[in-house]
């Protein structure tokens, strides 16, 4: 069962951790950066991973721009396993799409010119759909995160974060 923590929050700081006491003689500590978020969550970026340097740059950019990040964190190691960038939008039209499986919906997000899809197979489909519909009705903004395939994987009202949220 997937037990990943999800955090959607502003980056508070990115820092090098204090050197730990080596448990074994000659054991090198892992190359980690500590990424802390505004509402208290913290995580590690494993700099030995090939994409970690880019992730560190992007996280720093989000920190500078005061924009939130979407991260998935391994609950045991606290290492970041995924980084995406949410978009704050208002919700335009929502209508069923004949593509994909079941009762998928296509969502117009403003401002964005891409087509965005919320797939019915997503475990939070109903909850996300309600948030989108409420935001559409009220004219309020939401924070939407998509996969690289433009499929919506997280929706929350702007200002809300997912402390301890699980995937």
């Amino acid at each position: 069962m997937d037990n990943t923590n999800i955090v959607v929050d502003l980056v508070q700081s990115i820092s090098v951790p204090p050197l730990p006491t080596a448990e074994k003689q000659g054991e090198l500590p892992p190359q980690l950066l500590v990424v802390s978020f505004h509402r208290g969550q913290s995580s590690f970026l494993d700099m030995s991973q090939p994409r970690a340097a880019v992730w560190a740059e992007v996280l720093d950019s989000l920190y500078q721009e005061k924009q939130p990040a979407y991260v998935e964190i391994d609950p045991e190691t606290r290492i970041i396993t995924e980084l995406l960038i949410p978009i704050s939008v208002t919700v335009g039209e929502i209508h069923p799409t004949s593509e994909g499986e079941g009762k998928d919906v296509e969502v117009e997000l403003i401002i964005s010119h891409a087509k965005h899809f919320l797939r019915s197979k997503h475990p939070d489909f109903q909850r996300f759909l309600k948030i989108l519909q409420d935001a559409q009705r009220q004219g309020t903004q939401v924070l939407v995160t998509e996969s690289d395939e433009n499929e919506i994987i997280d929706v929350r009202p702007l200002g809300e974060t997912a402390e301890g949220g699980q995937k």
Partner: protein
Amino acid sequence: MAITLQRARELFDLVNRKLCCPASSPSPCIPFLYPDDGCWGRAHEMCRLIIADGATPRKVWIYGNLRVDTANNPSCNVRWGWHVAPTLRVSTGSGSQTYVIDPSLFDRPVQQSTWVSVQGDASATTASTDASVFYRAYNGSVQYDPTYSETRAVLTRYRNILKLRSASSNGPPPYFNCLTKPRGVQWFGTIGPRQTHRWYTWGWPSSWHVFWTIMPLTQCPGGPQLTWTVQVERASTSQCTYWIIVKNLTSDSVKFEGRYDILKR
């Protein structure tokens, strides 16, 4: 006032030179290689550059069920509800025509009808606005960004997303599954930042005179990307193996073609 096609090409090249090397995407580059989203930011920035160079662009907006084939998305296409790009009025032999400046779709200025035709919806509608319009909704309502602060935020966002995609297992664009290997290309390869890697290709008749070259596919203007050397092994009385060592001179991953030319059989 209408300009010449040559001047339109100069203005196209002006904005195209701002293309982001996808893996590093340094500001203030324009992320043309992320066609998925962000066109309004790219268009506004392009207009700013064109205006600074002394020309007078407008914008064309298209609305519909748009779908464009592109090798710069891992799925080999992008789908849009609308799209926007700068336009220029160009003098032609029979008056003047509207040309579109859109490096995310083309490698040169194109007539507006051509720009519309590649977006896959014969019933799409278009609208023209002044360059100062930052966003135009389908219903005609508009937003402005006179200080370009919103433009800067949009470009920053999509530069970062392009960097994330390039750092993923997909790597930087273009995507091999979207490409057809042209004649004279032996293989597509990817080489990491500052890496040196060796490829080999065997079974070549040793009587042939064969030349090997490398051509980057990942766009990254500003300096040399790849260099290479060739070694050869006589594998048998009649066949040889070529070993091509490719060196990436940049700090970004580069996708490339390994090319051969048979000068004499």
